[in-house]
């Protein structure tokens, strides 16, 4: 196959919030930049974020970045790196105000400032009471943000390659990153995008689970590409199950519903969160609420004929509040749950939502790997931001509204670092290795010639069901061990997938087969990392690591206060220390403590 070569200063893969924010930095600095995206930018999954973006603007209640930092570290169950968390919380006001200047249609307070609402795990004065920190555009914040960022990129003349799917990362013998291979959907042709800098902003991989709030496109393409190229993946055992996915459909209902006063109830109408989180109740952090809901269901207090869900009740809110602050939620409830939330509660279940782990990076957006005794050595030419990256600001559990903040702060930071490295002459266009596209071409050739293989749909379904059963809200040693075994078998089957459609033109079957390769890497990383971590922390809770005085909530800091690193080759595991030291002297380290809400 003929492989065209295109050369740029920088190539960005992904045009969701992180990719667009990074692109803006590069375009405005005059770098020749290519943004590759497998969907038109405004179709990226950032569009589905609802409840808001965190910033301690203090527009409605007193607030400051110290409180935000404390909440984020506590929310992460102390697995987050405190330098990156300080950086993010300090930068929040700047990037949110910038977005407002770009035209983002935030809701407003009576005095014309950005409207803010309470959100889970966000508090004032170090856990005392809920704080209004989530900057919102009704319940369509992600949509408003993604469109504003795209629009700003139109103004900046950013060069997009729309409906181009990146296939593999190109590294040379030194391990430096020189770009990617990518396929144009419309023609099936493969190109090499050769660049001095490569930024991954490819989003998460929530589609490894059967029940997910995530879009079809969330297949962990960047994470899979990095893993195949020998980059380790960090903390992949930590997946967020959002408390309120519509039962049966999986569609997200924002935590902003509880921020506006919504209450979770069991079959008997009891506000059960009062028992699990006496202080913040329904606004405890997501892992805590999801576990409480699962416990209610497991103990027979679920609602509905099969007692398999709980109820999210906003019938006590005024119809005006619902129409003004939660109009999209009302549409979703009517469309996907068949109930009008003004009149009846919404059936909800914990649903896979967010990947806390990812490609290891530092707060500058540089991808970092262990090398020569340094556990965080930057990979020359490689950067990542957003859900595909692990900075790590979310640690073992992300707070709501910190994902939109993450993609703004680290999208911008990665962009700034590339611009600095470019201007200082540190980034060079190294020659491509021989056969730079061979791995990608081999994958495509296999798909073209494979016979007697299995369908992508069947193998993908087996993976999703396996992950759902073996690595869910609660985790059990035996199930994890079986899961590792099963995922190994499924990964072998994925090597023999067969597609019937061989067309060059917009071949969805080929795209789905390539996406499955990426999902498989993520699923393997998840199950292997989860099986190995013999403690409970944040979203990773094992029945054999219970709450004891030595190990509060089952958390074993003596042995497990460390980041997992998983290597695809041989399922090898390594670990690196958590950075408990903030970036500056402006703040003391947040000391380890038991998490209660």
């Amino acid at each position: 196959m003929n492989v065209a070569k295109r050369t740029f200063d920088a190539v960005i893969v992904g045009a969701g919030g992180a990719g667009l924010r990074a692109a803006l930095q590069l375009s405005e600095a005059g770098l020749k930049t290519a943004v590759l995206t497998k969907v038109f930018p405004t179709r990226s999954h950032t569009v589905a974020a609802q409840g808001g973006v965190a910033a301690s603007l203090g527009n409605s209640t007193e607030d400051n970045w110290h409180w935000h930092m404390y909440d984020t570290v506590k929310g992460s169950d102390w697995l987050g790196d405190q330098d990156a968390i300080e950086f993010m919380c300090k930068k929040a006001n700047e990037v949110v105000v910038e977005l407002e200047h770009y035209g983002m249609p935030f809701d407003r307070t009576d005095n014309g400032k950005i409207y803010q609402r309470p959100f889970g795990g966000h508090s004032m004065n170090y856990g005392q009471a809920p704080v209004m920190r989530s900057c919102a555009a009704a319940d369509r914040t992600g949509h408003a943000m993604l469109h504003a960022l795209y629009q700003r990129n139109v103004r900046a003349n950013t060069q997009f390659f729309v409906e181009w799917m990146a296939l593999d990362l190109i590294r040379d013998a030194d391990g430096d990153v020189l770009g990617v291979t990518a396929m144009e959907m419309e023609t099936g042709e493969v190109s090499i995008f050769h660049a001095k800098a490569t930024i991954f902003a490819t989003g998460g991989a929530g589609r490894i689970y059967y029940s997910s709030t995530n879009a079809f496109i969330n297949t962990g393409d960047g994470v899979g590409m990095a893993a195949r190229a020998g980059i380790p993946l960090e903390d992949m055992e930590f997946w967020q199950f959002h408390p309120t996915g519509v039962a049966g459909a999986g569609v997200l209902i924002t935590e902003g519903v509880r921020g506006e006063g919504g209450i979770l109830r069991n079959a008997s109408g009891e506000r059960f969160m009062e028992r699990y989180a006496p202080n913040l109740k329904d606004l405890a952090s997501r892992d805590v609420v999801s576990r409480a809901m699962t416990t209610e269901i497991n103990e027979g207090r679920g609602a509905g004929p099969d007692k398999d869900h709980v109820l999210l009740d906003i019938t006590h809110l005024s119809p005006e509040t619902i129409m003004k602050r939660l109009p999209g939620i009302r549409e979703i409830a009517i469309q996907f749950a068949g109930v009008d939330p003004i009149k009846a509660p919404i059936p909800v279940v914990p649903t896979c939502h967010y990947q806390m782990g990812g490609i290891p990076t530092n707060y500058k957006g540089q991808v970092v790997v262990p090398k020569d005794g340094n556990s965080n050595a930057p990979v020359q030419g490689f950067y990542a931001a957003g859900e595909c990256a692990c900075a790590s600001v979310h640690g073992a559990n992300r707070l709501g509204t910190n994902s939109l903040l993450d993609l703004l702060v680290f999208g911008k930071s990665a962009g700034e670092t590339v611009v600095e490295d470019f201007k200082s002459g540190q980034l060079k266009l190294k020659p491509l290795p021989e056969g730079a596209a061979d791995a990608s071409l081999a994958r495509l050739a296999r798909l073209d010639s494979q016979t007697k293989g299995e369908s992508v749909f069947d193998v993908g379904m087996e993976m999703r069901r396996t992950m759902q059963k073996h690595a869910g809200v609660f985790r059990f040693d035996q199930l994890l061990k079986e899961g590792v075994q099963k995922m190994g078998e499924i990964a072998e089957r994925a090597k023999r997938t067969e597609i019937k459609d061989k067309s060059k033109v917009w071949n969805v079957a080929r795209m789905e087969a390539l996406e499955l390769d990426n999902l498989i890497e993520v699923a393997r990383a998840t199950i292997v990392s989860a099986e190995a971590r013999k403690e409970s922390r944040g979203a990773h809770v094992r029945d054999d690591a219970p709450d004891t005085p030595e190990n509060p909530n089952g958390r074993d800091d003596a042995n497990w206060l460390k980041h997992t690193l998983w290597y695809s080759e041989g399922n090898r595991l390594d670990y690196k220390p958590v950075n408990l030291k903030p970036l500056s002297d402006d703040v003391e380290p947040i000391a380890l403590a038991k998490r209660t809400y």
Partner: protein
Amino acid sequence: MTKRTVQFKIYRYDPDKDEKPYMQDISVELEASDKKLLDALVRLRAKDDSMSFRRSCREGVCGSDAMNINGKNGLACLTDIDSLQQPITLRPLPGLPVIRDLIVDMTQFFKQYHSIKPYLVNNDPPPERERLQTPEDREELNGLYECILCACCSTSCPSFWWNPDKFVGPAGLLAAYRFLADTRDQDTNARLDNLEDPYRLFRCHSIMNCVDVCPKGLNPTRAIGKIKDMMVRRAI
């Protein structure tokens, strides 16, 4: 709902192998949990992996899976299967070149969107904090900013079919008014100049197909009327 079989008639065309497009009769058995047209299309793909269409969020916010469903444009993910008369006839969005099956080339649609300068223009030095806007002024943007660029409206508009290169179309004009209506934007005159021509704005004849098909319940015709009002007020 229970298990049931649904009949389809679907526009098929793969330029790699088909000389010309054809309508394919095909049926699929649905599970009880399948409610939306998109669920059925995913089942169809499991049966025939060459069936090509775009899809992503499956909840009506990304705008990928717009198509012509029993003669009317809509999103597959927001359309109840059981509300549709069978055989369910699916065609690509009308008026745009077909790439393959239900996938159209949206270049012209986005070109028109880009032509209205879809970004906020404010040349004052940015203040340290957010620019202020009253809740009432912010409410002017409701019904405008929620557009998902699915193209259901523009591709249901006869004026856009005849002049896709000259008439901005309902989606682009809705976006134009979104910025005209924003108290923070300072480019009103240039925006109106940009639309002052026999085609760009004035080809809208208030047929209102756009309002009828918008899956988000938006009203481009009303926005177009408001732009026309601004033109008139400016002329006086």
